[in-house]
């Protein structure tokens, strides 16, 4: 219930449009009901043989109701879709506002593709809450009352009976249907998911399937899942069929009952016989209002589930809150020093510490490397430095000042990042670059592309920088993506640079080629170099060896080799590959 009221709150800014749409929807139905009623009256009245002139009003109405209905329906559809699209826009902006502070959220991104895609789909589903749920319900109510009113003119008994039938068809049938199909909806979702898993499994492992001759087994597995889905769907079809059949039966039975009740009334002249046919047609026509209610109820259930999921994500508290009075970051021509002081970090309370007692200083112009086996918490350092998270204890300082009071955007302007995976947006290459600095001029873009050694790549593209890239555009190789990231870093030209496993996903050859571009990027810049490949370590001013979240060794390359500890071990193993003996 709470979810529903929250959902309705989204409709509140659109209430006047909604009112208009509901009005038009009602006019639409009233006009068709009137049309049929009038037509029946016309025929019946004509049968009594009056003067043509007395029939002129019914004739006129019967001709014009068609236009009224068609026009009101047309306008109603436009207004409704307008409302729905506005609702969608509001929902998206709202969702974005709530989720933006959370990124990169552990849960949201960790099982990314799926969760995020479902969130977006859920938000899209919610746009239908007005069109498919609220509107039909309100219009059904209005028309039911209108029908009640019309029949009251004839007899209160008829009015109540008509209302009862409308209510049964509008409320009773959907409830029955929902009760009968309880659990089936979930079963269908599960069956579809199982089918999808089976298909994905077979396709992803196709090499192994064929190599081990298991094609037949896979096909049989698919057939089994398909049969299971078919079973659920057949049962659902039985219920859906019942729903339509009952609705139809109720409509016709309503007519049947009303006729039976009206016949004695005609006999006693309580109702003029002329209206007998009218009564029949009026009730039949009015049922159009309650027909969309069954899918509306289903849609309601669906929308509520989607809304719950969306609210669950949107309501999550942001991990980092900007201070109420964010301080501007003072521009310091002398450079910036970032320091970690006794920093501890755990993602979730109760879990083991990802970082324990980390202290180091990243001074202007210096290069510091953080190495160590994976799972050591290295990337978390970047997240903390960018204030995507706050340390569980300890502080991070910029030029000696705790970074927490600072304006987040200005803080992040100071740090450039080249990470392992680079996200490329569905946009032009130029747009993807300009992300780093929107006001950058042509010359600057060209320079950045040059420095990242992307020029050749861009040159052989027929549309150059205007080429669309990203998920729906040109697919870039791992090496090309990283070059893009490097170009972005060049453009951003931030005083502090963090390389977070920048070449981890690349093969040896591409990595080798990229190193030149990286060298140029890090020249003279304060760099934090996170890696598990010990390349170019001689140029580092300090190397920190991280194991299970703690610094176990620190020093320069030569110093660490001499110690013959973990660093030496890692270095030797890596080098061992190259010996020929």
């Amino acid at each position, binding site marked *: 219930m709470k979810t529903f009221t929250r959902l309705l709150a989204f409709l509140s800014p659109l209430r006047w449009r909604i009112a208009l749409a509901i009005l038009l929807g009602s006019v639409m139905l009233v006009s068709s009901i009137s049309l049929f009623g009038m037509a029946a009256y016309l025929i019946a009245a004509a049968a009594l043989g009056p003067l043509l002139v007395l029939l002129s009003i019914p004739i006129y109405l019967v001709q014009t109701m068609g236009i009224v209905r068609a026009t009101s329906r047309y306008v109603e559809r436009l207004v409704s879709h307008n409302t729905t699209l506005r609702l969608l826009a509001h929902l998206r902006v709202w969702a974005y506002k709530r989720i933006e502070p959370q990124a990169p959220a552990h849960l949201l991104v960790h099982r990314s593709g799926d969760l995020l895609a479902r969130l977006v789909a859920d938000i899209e589903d919610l746009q239908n809450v007005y069109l498919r749920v609220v509107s039909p319900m309100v219009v059904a109510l209005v028309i039911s009352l209108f029908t009640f009113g019309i029949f009251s003119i004839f007899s209160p008994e008829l009015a109540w009976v008509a209302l009862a039938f409308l209510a049964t068809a509008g409320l009773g049938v959907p409830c029955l249907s929902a009760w009968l199909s309880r659990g089936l909806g979930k079963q269908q979702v599960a069956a579809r998911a199982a089918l999808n898993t089976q298909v994905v499994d077979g396709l992803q492992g196709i090499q192994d399937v064929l190599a081990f001759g298991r094609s037949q087994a896979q096909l049989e597995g698919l057939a089994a899942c398909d049969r299971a889905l078919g079973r659920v769907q057949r049962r659902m079809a039985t219920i859906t069929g019942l729903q339509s059949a009952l609705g139809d039966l109720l409509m016709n039975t309503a007519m049947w009952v009303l006729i039976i009740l009206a016949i004695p009334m005609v006999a006693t002249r309580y109702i003029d016989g002329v209206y007998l046919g009218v009564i029949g047609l009026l009730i039949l026509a009015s049922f159009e209002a309650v027909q969309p209610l069954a899918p509306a109820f289903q849609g309601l259930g669906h929308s509520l589930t989607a809304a719950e999921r969306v609210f669950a994500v949107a309501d999550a508290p942001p991990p980092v809150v900007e201070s109420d009075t964010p301080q501007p970051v003072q521009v310091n021509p002398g450079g910036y020093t970032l320091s970690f002081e006794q920093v501890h970090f755990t993602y979730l309370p109760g879990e083991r510490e990802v970082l324990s007692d980390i202290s180091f200083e990243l001074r202007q112009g210096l290069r510091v490397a953080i190495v160590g086996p*994976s799972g050591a918490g290295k990337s978390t350092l970047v997240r903390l430095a960018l204030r995507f998270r706050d340390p569980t204890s300890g502080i991070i300082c910029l030029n000696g000042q705790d970074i927490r009071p600072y304006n987040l955007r200005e803080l992040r302007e100071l740090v450039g990042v080249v990470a392992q995976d680079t996200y490329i947006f569905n946009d032009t290459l130029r747009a993807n670059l300009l992300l780093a600095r929107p006001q950058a001029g042509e010359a600057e873009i060209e320079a950045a592309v040059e420095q990242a050694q992307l020029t050749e790549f861009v040159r052989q593209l027929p549309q150059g920088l205007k080429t669309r890239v990203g998920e729906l555009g040109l697919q870039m190789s791992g090496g090309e993506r990283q070059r893009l990231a490097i170009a972005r870093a060049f453009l951003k030209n931030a005083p502090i640079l963090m390389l977070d496993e920048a070449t981890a996903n690349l093969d040896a*050859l591409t990595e080798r080629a990229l190193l030149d571009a990286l060298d140029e990027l890090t020249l003279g810049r304060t760099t934090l170099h996170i890696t598990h490949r010990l390349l170019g370590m001689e140029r580092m001013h300090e190397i920190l060896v991280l194991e299970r979240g703690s610094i176990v060794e620190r020093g320069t390359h030569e110093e660490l080799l001499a110690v013959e500890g973990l660093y030496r071990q890692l270095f030797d193993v890596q080098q061992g590959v190259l010996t020929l003996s």
Partner: protein
Amino acid sequence: MHKKLLAYIKASRSMLALTIVLGMLGAIATIAQIALLSEIVNAVFLLHRGLAQVLVPLALLMGALTLRASLLWGREVTAQRAAIRLKSSLRERVFAHLLQLGPAWSSGERTGELAAVISEGIERLDAYIGRYLPQLVLSVVVPLLIIVVILPVDWFSAVLLLFTGPVIPLLMALVGSNTSKRTRAQWATLSLMSAHFLDVMQGLTTLKVFGRSQAQQERIALISDRFRDKTLQVLRYAFLSGAVLEFMTLTAIGVIATMLGVRLLNNGISFDSAFFILLLTPEFYRPLQELGVQRHAAMEGAASAKRIFEILETPLATGVEPAVEESFPTGPITIDISALSYTYPRKEQPALDGVSLQLAANTCTALVGRSGAGKSTLVNLLMRFMDATSGTIRANGVPITALSPHRWREYVALVPQRPYLFYGTVRENIRLARPEASDDEVTHAATLAGVTALIDELPRGFDTQVGEQGMQLSAGQAQRVAIARAILKNTPILILDEPTSCLDPDSEARIRQSLTSLMRDRTVLVIAHRYNTIAQADRIVVLEDGRIVEADTRDALTLSAHARLLGTVSTSEVSEGSIERHTAPHSSAYASAD
């Protein structure tokens, strides 16, 4: 394209026919219902009969109503069954075809998209099969039936209906065709807009890093607004066809009512006939209206069918199966590759160009080369995932095309670079290699592969569910399972594709023993990047741009070849743990729990 779909309908033919019949019977019940109602109203209104005198028609009316409702129920059920049958049949065919196309084809496609087509895309054919097709037939048959019924009652009205009938869909088509292209373009933009939103959400972290996330908020609103305006412009036209249909239908009813009224006044027609015709008129137009309503959903479904046919019509890369299959005697196999060439479809450069090579029985040959040099193409050809464009591969003198791909693969075991673990237990995953193997054999293979210690640590040991939905094993662990599979399969030919690439030096050392014993007494082809692996081979072959540039025993290799080798050998040996993600999702930089 509709024709193609219709060709596949065979599976549902009987159900569809039944649906149509039920629809027709429903129409007859409706006609009966209307006739009875007219009779009753006429009796009471004009003939001043009482309730008692119309009991029989009333009872019959109730019968007709109930019949009509039951037929409606039946029709819904049969329609869905028809749809289910077609979907199942189509699904199985597409999947079977995909399996036959093999990894060579599907590696170039997106698995997610293919899976979506098979599971969800096919589902969308529901509306097309179950509703649209029957309605197509009914929207011709039922109106004709009604005209036939009305004709003896009042030929004038019948003729009127006959003329207005086709006019309406014609007008609809005229208005409709104009807008359909625009509508389609607009729906395409709609999906782009959702894609944009998803894009922004996925790249949110990147936006924050560059301080652009606030700006995006305004952009989302802006794009949504712009889209809304454009969409409404298109909808103004799109809804027009529906409005025209509605207007014409209702006006026709109005005109007919008026004409009936006028003729009643002149005693040109009786009341019950007039009433009968009046009630029947909307039923005349209803099937066509229904068709219009269902068209949209049906067309969506048909669109996904396009992709399905695309897949079904992709030609297979392997040749025709041999009529009579030969088999090899058990024992060591020598593989002779001569002038083997292969060019991928739609590519100009051959991936393999005249490669000739011999893999002598019970020897180990290492294949080295840059990525894109043709190594995986050679493996695909050896595995008969594809057949060569020219040249032959012979095993003990017999061309491998003499066997069906399925039978050939019984002689070859493959340890792929990224082994796939299916959703099932560990035991089942190993047993994949040889389903008849006993539990002991499986355990033994696991021991030899050095994976037992690992399995014992799993919550349920060998019976732990692994794979996409189960426990995620690391790439290194999966690799060891793959080695266990190869051990279990015990074939004369063995192909290893970077067998230890995901293992840290420690694990690699541990299983080197098992690998060595596995590679003994078999014809082995090893693709390697690690010098350690190459060191064990009897022969080293260097592949570059689809050609062999060097092929010699290890001792005899020259210095230049070594330099070439070094260029392709990975320098990253420090625990590849961070790449131990089993599948490779495209997650953001800050997603790894590093």
